[in-house]
Each structure stands twice: as structure tokens, then as C-alpha cells.
């Protein structure tokens, strides 16, 4: 069974704070994604990557950086957190053969609150 692990599960920070969300997958997948989920907006793609050292811009990248240090690890960085970044964040990985929209494996999510 494919595994995607996110940490922390919950995080509270203050405006201007520095936050790092972590994601590790043990699926040997090349593709990894960061999404944010907000009521009325569904899942919006922040950044994604197709391998160590690679970074692709998603649809809502402003205020976020990401880094893919290894095939397994993908980090989302908020260097100056703002209340608008309060959200539920999901990491996902994807195999690189066959379908793609049909083969996403999601982590359990990180709920971030920016006060």
C-alpha cells in the first residue's frame, strides 16, 4: 500500500512566522504535490515536483516556497506566514506511468492556523 506521511498534523503560528510542512512518501514515486484545501475552493495546487531538485509552479504559489531534497521528501515553506494561509494542506505523490489524475496518493493533511 502506497504511503504518504505528513507532519505535523496541526500547526499554529503567528503572522510573520516561519513554518515548514513536511511530506515523505515511500512509494518510489517521482511526482509529489502540495495542495491547499479551503471551503468553496476545493483543492488548489501550490507546487509540485517530478524529482529531487525539481520544482514546478502550481496555480496558487504566492507566499510559498517548496523544496524537494530527495525522491522521498518534499517540503513546503512559509517564510512570512499570513492569516490568508490558514488552511488544510495536503501532500500527494503520483506514479509516473499510466494515468495521473487517477493515481494520486494523499497524505492525511496538515491543518495550519496563522493567527
Amino acid at each position: 500500500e502506497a504511503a504518504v506521511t505528513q507532519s505535523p498534523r496541526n500547526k499554529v503560528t503567528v503572522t510573520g512566522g516561519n513554518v515548514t510542512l513536511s511530506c515523505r512518501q515511500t512509494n518510489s514515486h517521482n511526482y509529489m504535490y502540495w495542495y491547499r484545501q479551503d471551503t468553496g475552493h476545493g483543492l488548489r495546487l501550490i507546487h509540485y515536483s517530478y524529482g529531487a531538485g525539481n520544482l514546478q509552479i502550481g496555480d496558487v504559489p504566492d507566499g510559498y516556497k517548496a523544496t524537494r531534497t530527495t525522491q522521498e521528501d518534499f517540503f513546503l515553506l512559509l517564510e512570512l506566514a499570513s492569516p490568508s494561509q490558514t488552511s488544510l494542506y495536503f501532500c500527494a505523490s503520483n506514479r509516473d506511468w499510466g494515468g495521473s489524475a487517477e493515481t494520486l496518493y494523499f497524505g492525511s493533511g496538515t491543518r495550519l492556523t496563522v493567527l
Partner: protein
Amino acid sequence: GQQVKQSSPSLTVQEGGISILNCDYENDMFDYFAWYKKYPDNSPTLLISVRSNVDKREDGRLTVFLNKSGKHFSLHITASQPEDTAVYLCAADTNAYKVIFGKGTHLHVLP
């Protein structure tokens, strides 16, 4: 603009009825189409998917229909049950692996 659009934020269906969830898309290059189910504070789980060379796929009570000329795909759930109550997200992708989701439709199945 929104590339994958679910125009109905909510849908209410009586138990035993058919739930029809709709999704429209803009990008002619989308090649893979999927439906995910999501409970509050849980991660999405894949329900059913199709590739663009197929216009219909069935799996138990679920059927996905793809209309490429109309840039539209839908999910039909027959014999809807209260446990089907959840948010349903449609998703699409080219083979470039940028997977885009709709905003979701909250399905309520009334007992």
C-alpha cells in the same frame, strides 16, 4: 480562469435515488479524468477514473461519463445511500502530471 469547474456547490438526493455530479473543463489537452470522494478533515480518495479514449466506465454503483466534444464529465451514483454523503471532487490532467481539481460538490443523501 478555472480550468476544472463544478458549478453546483451542493446536491441533495433522496435515499435510493440517482446522484448526478457534473464537471466542466476548459483544456482540450486534458487526457485523464477522475472523481474523488472527501470527508471533512480527511484526505481525498479516488472513486473512479477514465482516460480520454473511453466515454464511459462503470464500477458497481458508480458510472463516469465523458463527453469530450462538450468538455464535460459526470459521475452517476445509483441507489444513493446516506453513507454517500460527502464532498465529491472532479480532477483532470494532461500527461504532464499537473492534476487540477474542481471546487467540489457536497452531496447530501437523505434517509
